[in-house]
């Protein structure tokens, strides 16, 4: 055969065709995923059977439950031997599970704080939200706690002034000496203000202009309100602290690096519950006599430090995944360290670290239940209190089920949000 006969030139392009329908659509999916061969088909059928059995037991139990009764005994009388839930306990004790002993005429205050928090989160979480909402975001860390604990308005004002003081000192020092000196002395001035002057300032101003809310003591905090308060402050504070620690760990300054590594490794090596005991018992020894240092505040600090160490490692993972070229390009363009971090490095490193960051947040929120061990009445603490009541003695599934359900809703929302965020930040780069 000669070459001329085998040589071949296509003159027209073939048109595109639909894929065979057996591979697409719901039927295609079911075939491909549930019944690809006899063994998988068997597993699918077995799973369906188990799911059916579980639902057949759970649905009548949950939906046939009793909602109105004043004790477990009454529930049982109403049910007359039928095996169903006694939701009445949730109904009866709902407000305590939600707010603990917080005065019921003041529920509007935590509610308002929560609404404020949600409004404050909108510009942080969603691009394209009105920029004016940022004012709420800035005010919430000060107004929120004031709403919860009450007291004079001058306390949050004094707290906010600390940042103003820090910023002014930073500007002055950075202008006169160096940026680094400003970065050290600015925060130092703020801390000094908070420790030494803020209290006097707010007392003084409260004397002149007594504006305030009825104070509520920490020991009245409880239920999900306490869990959310601890969770939110922990998340909000551990995130920036984690970033700073991650950067510190990468720093060329030996002191900064050693401190960061030491802190991270120490905290990661110690169980959270130990830190909580330290917060409960030990911290009091280190503080000057007579200092009132709120137990919730102490716990908040420990939870924050704990998850900041994990956060730092998660963020370091993101930093390590960035190619060196990104730093070099930022340097070559003349961006300084902080500009490069803020505009180039962190946006990418944090994006890479989103799954880990959100896992840490979820873990932190669930870990707030450990405070029940040191005697704070979080939702699990309340479960025990309710079980200790003679009227509800012996009730288990309903209470734990309810608490688990609420935790699941919150944690699952966080997880979904992180998926949304990852999709939104996808720019086709690999």
């Amino acid at each position, binding site marked *: 055969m000669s070459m001329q006969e085998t040589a071949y030139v296509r003159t027209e392009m073939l048109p595109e065709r639909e894929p065979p329908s057996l591979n697409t659509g719901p039927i295609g999916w079911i075939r491909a995923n549930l019944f690809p061969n006899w063994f998988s088909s068997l597993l699918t059928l077995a799973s369906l059977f188990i799911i059916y059995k579980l639902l057949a037991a759970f649905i009548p139990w949950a939906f046939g439950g009793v909602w109105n009764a004043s004790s477990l005994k009454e529930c049982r009388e109403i049910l007359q031997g039928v095996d169903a839930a006694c939701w009445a306990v949730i109904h009866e004790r709902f407000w305590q599970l939600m707010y603990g002993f917080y005065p019921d005429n003041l529920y509007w205050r935590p509610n308002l704080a929560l609404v404020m928090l949600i409004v404050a989160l909108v510009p942080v979480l969603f691009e394209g939200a009105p920029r004016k909402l940022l004012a709420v975001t800035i005010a919430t860390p000060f107004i929120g706690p004031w709403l919860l604990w009450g007291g004079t308005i001058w306390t949050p004002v004094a707290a906010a002034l600390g940042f103003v003081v820090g910023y002014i000192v930073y500007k002055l020092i950075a202008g006169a000496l160096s940026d680094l000196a400003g970065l050290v002395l600015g925060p130092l001035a703020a801390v000094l203000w908070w420790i030494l002057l803020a209290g006097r300032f707010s007392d003084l101003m409260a004397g002149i202009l007594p504006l305030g809310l009825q104070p509520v003591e920490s020991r009245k905090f409880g239920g999900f309100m306490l869990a959310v308060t601890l969770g939110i402050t922990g998340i909000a504070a551990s995130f920036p602290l984690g970033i700073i620690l991650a950067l510190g760990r990468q720093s060329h300054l030996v002191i900064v690096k050693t401190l960061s590594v030491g802190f991270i490794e120490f905290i990661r090596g110690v169980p959270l519950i130990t830190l909580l005991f330290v917060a409960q018992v030990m911290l009091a020894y280190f503080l000057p006599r007579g200092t009132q240092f709120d137990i919730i505040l102490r716990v908040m600090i420990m939870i924050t430090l704990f998850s900041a160490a994990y956060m730092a490692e998660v963020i370091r993972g993101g930093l390590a995944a960035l*190619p060196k*070229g*990104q730093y*070099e*390009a930022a*340097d*070559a*363009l*003349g*961006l*300084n360290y902080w*500009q490069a971090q803020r*505009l*180039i490095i962190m*946006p*990418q490193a944090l*994006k890479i670290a989103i799954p880990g960051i959100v896992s840490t947040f979820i873990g932190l929120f669930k870990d707030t239940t450990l405070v029940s061990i040191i005697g704070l009445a979080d939702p699990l603490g309340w479960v025990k209190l309710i079980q200790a009541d003679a009227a509800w003695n012996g009730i288990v599934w309903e209470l734990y089920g309810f608490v688990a359900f609420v935790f699941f809703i919150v944690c699952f929302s966080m997880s979904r949000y992180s998926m949304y965020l990852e999709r939104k*930040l996808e*720019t*086709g*780069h*690999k």
Partner: protein
Amino acid sequence: MSEVEFDHHADRSRMKVSDEVAVEVINMNKWYGSFHVLRDINLTVNRGERIVICGPSGSGKSTLIRCMNRLEEHQEGKIIVDGIELTSDLKNIDKVRREVGMVFQHFNLFPHLTILENCTLAPIWVRKVPRREAEETAMHYLEKVKIPDQAHKYPGQLSGGQQQRVAIARSLCMKPRIMLFDEPTSALDPEMIKEVLDTMIELAEEGMTMLCVTHEMGFAKEVANRVIFMDAGQIVEQNEPEEFFSNPKSERTKLFLSQIL
């Protein structure tokens, strides 16, 4: 390495070299640990010069040009860029980096920012140019590198050649007086090399001072006024391109040229 054919032949009459010095490197030495990577480098580059640096892999070409904007630190000797000596003084480093643009082998665009944002970022934050003005400048340079219609895409959506042209535009937006290129076409598919080299030729015609590490000898013949050959951390030979290619002096240069041409 194959030579690229250019549609557009460089107009050498427009490439004027002034006698003002742009970069001066005097007795410069650099070590990585105990490894002596750059040895006694002496080099003077005048404003408007186009210098091509070539040499075998690992000979220190990248390190040399990276010392010129202090991405790498030298331990001995002097490097004076645009009249400013590079020392550990951060203020001087910032000044030099504002005047020196750099294009990398792997583009190093910022993947989380659009093309336009890549180009406006440094002018806005480093030169403090108002956003509107920075965007106008960016569009001007994106038109020059012939990709204005991609301005709102992300780098990941562009071809390699397009990304490298964006990287050039990004550097130009800072209005640098000197441009450094570190193997700008080595990571590109053959059909994209030409579009990048064309952009660089135009830049040369406008009188930009350029130091370019490349093995594109066609480009060297077209625009360079001097070719520098490096080996084992030293400048072994430098000459005008015609002489360099037709009549190399050192054995090492001959060997190198025989391998790449």
